């Protein structure tokens, strides 16, 4: 198995995330990416009017550095470590998505219909991306964390609120995937 150019199986990907958690904890930090969104609001001066953003955001600049590293890693992996293509997507899913007009499952990393740079000129796609982004930003801060802060860090620390949040993630995700998305695509 060529870990450099081929997609990683789950038993490499999951432990690699645990290594990220390990490194951040031993660097005296916590793994949680959504708090960057709050930091960006505070940086822009939202703390002047809203108490929620009035805090020492400078103490969280380290996490923006992690985000910058994440973008760099994404650039590197997509451009230099993806020559063997993507992993197979279940055939039922491929057929189902094709019937809804979403092509590229098992061939591309992302559906071009939404994420190619041409998609930016489609008003409907823009509206869906904007709606999705808003829900992500609002929901993660309301929940107090996202997949990294709750599902990985919080569950690893045996936190009940994190279990509740992860259950919420799946309630929302299943609702969108099964009952709303078919009407939006």
């Amino acid at each position, binding site marked *: 198995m060529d870990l450099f150019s081929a997609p990683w199986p789950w038993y490499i990907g999951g432990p690699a995330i645990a290594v990220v958690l390990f490194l951040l904890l031993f660097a*005296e930090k916590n793994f949680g990416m959504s708090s960057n969104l709050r930091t960006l609001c505070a940086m822009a001066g939202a703390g002047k009017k809203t108490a929620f953003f009035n805090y020492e955001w400078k103490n969280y600049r380290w996490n923006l550095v992690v985000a910058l*590293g994440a973008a760099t890693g994404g650039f590197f992996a997509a451009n230099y470590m993806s020559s063997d293509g993507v992993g197979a997507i279940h055939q039922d899913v491929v057929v189902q998505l094709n019937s809804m007009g979403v092509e590229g499952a098992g061939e591309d990393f992302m559906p071009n219909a939404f994420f190619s740079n041409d998609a930016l000129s489609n008003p409907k796609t823009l509206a869906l991306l904007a709606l999705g*982004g808003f829900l992500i930003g609002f929901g993660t801060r309301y929940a107090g964390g996202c997949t990294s802060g709750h599902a*990985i860090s919080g569950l690893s620390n045996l936190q009940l609120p994190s279990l509740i949040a992860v259950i919420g993630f799946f309630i929302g995700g299943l609702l969108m995937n099964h009952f709303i998305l078919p009407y939006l695509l």
Partner: protein
Amino acid sequence: MKRVALYFSIGILFGITMIKSEAASWFRIYEMFQFKSFHMYGIIGSAVTLGVLITQSIKRFKLRSFFGEPIEIPSKAKLVKAPLFGGIVFGLGWALTGACPGPIYVLIGAGYFPLLVVLVFAILGTYCYGVLKPRLPH
């Protein structure tokens, strides 16, 4: 400066992991919510299993950081409504865009620039939460 380089390197590892494991792939998230593949469950399950071992070892054996200090792991606020309602709202956005807050940066770096729209509106969503926080059930 050394620490900044460390955080940046950890970010790079995270970014590579999100692409190579395909946890940042819209198709993988769609497939996960269709329960058609073990892949995403394997990733999250193995990460959490190892994460529990790491976190509980730190607490039990009072392990020290790379810099020789005690490691403090904060508890989450003991709430029910906020993680449930907020979790549902995030889940809706996750299944729609296929992106969590981490992969947003990773995908922008990978050249999927429509994620910039997701990022801008995620910041706006966080801002709106901050403004509405006093009126929401927690």
